[in-house]
């Protein structure tokens, strides 16, 4: 009986938040989703597949209703890992990564569907974490369009400047390009800066 009551009232009074990881392909969204999972649920297995091949995530993956507790702030968070958004997809790009032509064509079809679903999902989120690769210039059309759309929807947004473990990372360029949006530098791979990101989420969400 006690267990039923515990389950029923576990999250009563705790605010529910949908936090979405969005951005271009291969910026480290899934690596960050897996870190959230390990840090807040204690699970060792990955929630999202990670690969150097672009568009590895072709479906929206959710880590549902976990206790996001940072300091005194506690939220009931559903984290949504979305497929990377690109303007166009060419199956020949996948063949460069060793996929056969048939596999590459299938991957291109799956990735296309994934992008369309990611875009549809943008309207439903409470907080968007726009994940960028700090080693790439931040002037791409996808990031500009995403940030503009989130701003026009009044969606709370944090830019996650990922891959700071790489020597050519340039977080200052991202900060100067988007001075009106909070930027949090992290390495999802080694965990550096992730605690600061959690603090920012707790403050904003």
């Amino acid at each position, binding site marked *: 009986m006690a267990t039923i009551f515990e389950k029923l009232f576990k999250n009563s009074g705790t605010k529910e938040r949908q936090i979405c990881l969005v951005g271009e392909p291969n910026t480290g969204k899934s690596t960050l989703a897996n870190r959230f999972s390990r840090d807040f649920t204690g699970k060792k297995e990955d929630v999202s597949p990670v690969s150097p091949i672009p568009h590895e995530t072709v479906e929206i993956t959710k880590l549902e209703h976990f206790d996001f507790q940072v300091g005194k702030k506690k939220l009931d968070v559903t984290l949504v890992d979305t497929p990377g958004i690109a303007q166009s997809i060419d199956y020949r790009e996948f063949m460069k990564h060793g996929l056969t032509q048939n596999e590459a064509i299938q991957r*291109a079809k799956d990735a*296309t569907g994934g992008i369309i679903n990611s875009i549809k999902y943008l309207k439903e989120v409470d907080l968007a974490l726009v994940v960028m690769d700090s080693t790439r210039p931040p002037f791409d059309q996808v990031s500009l369009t995403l940030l503009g759309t989130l701003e026009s929807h009044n969606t709370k947004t944090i830019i996650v400047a990922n891959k700071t473990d790489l020597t050519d990372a340039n977080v200052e360029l991202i900060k100067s390009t988007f001075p009106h949006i909070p930027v949090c530098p992290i390495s999802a791979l080694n965990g550096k800066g992730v605690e600061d990101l959690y603090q920012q989420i707790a403050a904003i969400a």
Partner: protein
Amino acid sequence: MMLEFITARKIKNLDSSELIDFIIDRVMDDKILLMEKTFTPEEKLDLLTKGLTNAQTKTSKGINMVQIPIETKTSGKLRSKTTQIQFNLFAPGTSQIDQQEDGHYCVKSWDGKIHATV
């Protein structure tokens, strides 16, 4: 691939949806467009989505787009005026838009052949 220049005047009577269809029809027809127009982020996202939706049924794979702001200066006897005009370059997803060191943009196909430079 052929480059087509679309002035703001030519598209002034089209609403958002008609404009997006106008672009998609031409780009799917293997045209490169240079269009004088400022798009909202929602229009750009809509264009991206519809371009990719087409990609699922046709051989083309989305639409590549680059926004090119251009400043024009006019000088008069009393004062000079600076106006910013927004141009957008659209190309089929089977191609690539690269910015060159001199600031120009070129549209290349997969084999490296340059089809247009603006």
